[in-house]
Structure formats: C-alpha cells, structure tokens
C-alpha cells in the first residue's frame, strides 16, 4: 500500500531503512531524520496504521534507571519492503520531473 510522499516522510523512511531491525524512540528518530519534532508523531501513527511499524514500551524499571519508559518503534517485514518501494518510486518520480525540466541547449529557430 502506497502513501502520499512528502519530504519528512521520505527522510523518516530513509533513517528507518538504514537499519530496519533497530528500535528508535520518537525524539531519536526526529533528530536522525532532521524533522521538526512534533510533526513526526502523525507520520509514525500513519506508518503504524499501515502496519509498516510496530511500537512497544521499553521494559525498564523506571525507579532504577531514573527516567520514564519510552515508546520504541521498529519496522515490520512488510514495512521494509513497502518502504523500499515507496522510496524507489519517489526517486523515480524525482528523476522523471528533473528530466522534464532539463533545459535543451540549441539554436532558436
């Protein structure tokens, strides 16, 4: 299933695809993707809705560690292949647009 491409989404997918097995918490992902922090949560919720991501609470003893537990996000198998397709399609679209806009040098008739 494809979703509408946007620059923040593609940056987010790019980060997630660098190591699909890695788990990230929201702020970490936002920093890595260079996305303005608040905007990442609708994107993450959307990807979760599509089944591209799963999320789970960190299993820690909050008193021992001295901080609240975080929600970690990880790509699903389905998400990895779908995200790769999405990124590839976006790259192909960008290439097509660039080709269309390339100036042609020649003599004016």
């Amino acid at each position, binding site marked *: *299933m494809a979703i509408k491409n946007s620059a923040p989404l593609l940056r987010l997918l790019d980060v997630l695809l660098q190591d699909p097995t890695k788990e990230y*918490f*929201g*702020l970490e992902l936002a920093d890595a993707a260079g996305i*303005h*922090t*608040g*905007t990442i*949560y*609708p994107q993450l*919720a*959307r990807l*979760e*809705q599509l089944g591209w991501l*799963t*999320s*789970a*609470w960190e299993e820690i003893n909050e008193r021992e560690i001295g*901080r*609240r*537990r*975080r*929600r970690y996000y990880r790509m699903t198998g*389905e998400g990895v292949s779908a995200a790769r397709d999405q990124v590839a399609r976006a790259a192909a679209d960008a290439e097509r647009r660039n080709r269309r806009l390339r100036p042609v040098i020649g003599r004016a008739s």
Partner: protein
Amino acid sequence: MLPLFLGYVAIELHASTGILARLLVSLAVRTLPGRNRARYREEWLAELEPQSGAAALLWAGSVLFTAPKLTVVLRRTSAKAADVDQVAKVQLRLGADLTIDRVVIAYCCAPTTRDPIVVYVAKAGTKASVHRRDCVQLLLSLPQARQYEAFWSAHGLPATVRLSASREVSPLGTGIAWLEEIAGAFRGLGISARLVRANGRSNVATAEFIVEWPGERLIDAAVDSLMGLPGMRRVQTPGRATPRPQRPKQARGPDPGDR
C-alpha cells in the same frame, strides 16, 4: 538595576520552561481521542524529560501544533481497527466450558502484539476484549473473576484479509448482479465475507471485501473462483496479485453472407 531585574526574569523563565512545556504537552494530549491519551501522555513526557530550556518549550509547542493532525490519523486508525478484527492473533487459555464468539482489542489501552495481555469476558458466549495487563480500566473497574490470562499466538495470522475484485462493466448497471455473483462464490466455499466498498470508474467496477480468515488454501480457492467469474479483470489480496487472465479467443460464427 534594570539589567539585574532582567537577569532575574530570565533565570525565572528558564526555571519555569519545564513546567510550561509539560503544560503544553498536557494541552496537546487533551486534543487526542480519549483512548489514545494515556499512551501519548506517557510517550511525550518521557521524550520531554531529557530536554530543557527553550528546546523543551519549542518541542512541546510543536507537539501541540501537530496534535490535531495526529488526531485525524488516530481516528482513521480506530476506524480501521474496527474493520480488521484481530481474533486469530490471540490465543486464549480459557475454561473448556467457555466459548467466545468475538474478541476485540480494547480501545482504552490498545495493546500491541508485544504487550502482555489479559482477556476480559463481558458475558460468556458473546464478546471478550483484550487488554494490556497494566491497563488502568482493567485494574480499577473490571471484575477480576471475568479476567483470563491470554497470549499472542506465535504465528500471528491475520484474522481477516482484505480482498478486492474489479471487472469491466458494460453496460453500466450490472454492478449489483456482479456483487451477487461474488457473494455466491464466497457462499459456495463457505467463506464469510463483508462488502466494505464498491465503486465504478471508467467502466471498471471495483469491490473490496473483508473476509474472515479461512486459511491459505481457501483464500486461494476463493481467488480462483472469483477469477472464473465472467469479465473479472483482477482479484487481489494484500501482498499478492493475480495476473490478468488471457481471454479465450472467441470462435468466429458463420459469416452472414454465407447464408
């Protein structure tokens, strides 16, 4: 005197940014649907914790700013969750005398497959809901006698599958007959299916169904059976697509001029 006062104000402001940021997060959480508030409050406060000063304030402000957008996504998610029942993902260990017709994922805590879960049976023989073991509603307001230990199944099969079918419609108006043909094909295989949406565009009608998961073989049989219906162009289930069939070449009838 003035620089001293301004310095004092700056220090006070810096000290109160944490409180202000938490206030903004609370306001953002209030705009979310009720069942999602606890999760995002906890998630956002955990992410606010390592931040301080203006960065924390900016982050909390941006969260508040995008909360309405998140609300839209979450409302869409819950509508979809209602469509796709996750019965087969839950393995119930209930008494042999207890049968459950339908299991739903509780909206109050929305457990994921990695959360430890408990099933609350509202009424034997009808509906049960899956809660996280640490669900506040479960702990505080639901009778413990009706709570049962449950586990996610290892295979995690989906309970339902989306199946979409499309065909050329010519002339327009044959759509209902076509849907009846599809329903007949499902009935013939003993598969329970529910029509989610049907639409027509450029003489192509598309119908989408939610099918209770009957097993891989029956889904294959259903796809084959639907592909056998006249005029069917494509039948799809998530993750796979059936190729468009080759149309049999029609034998040409006798030339009218031969008569």
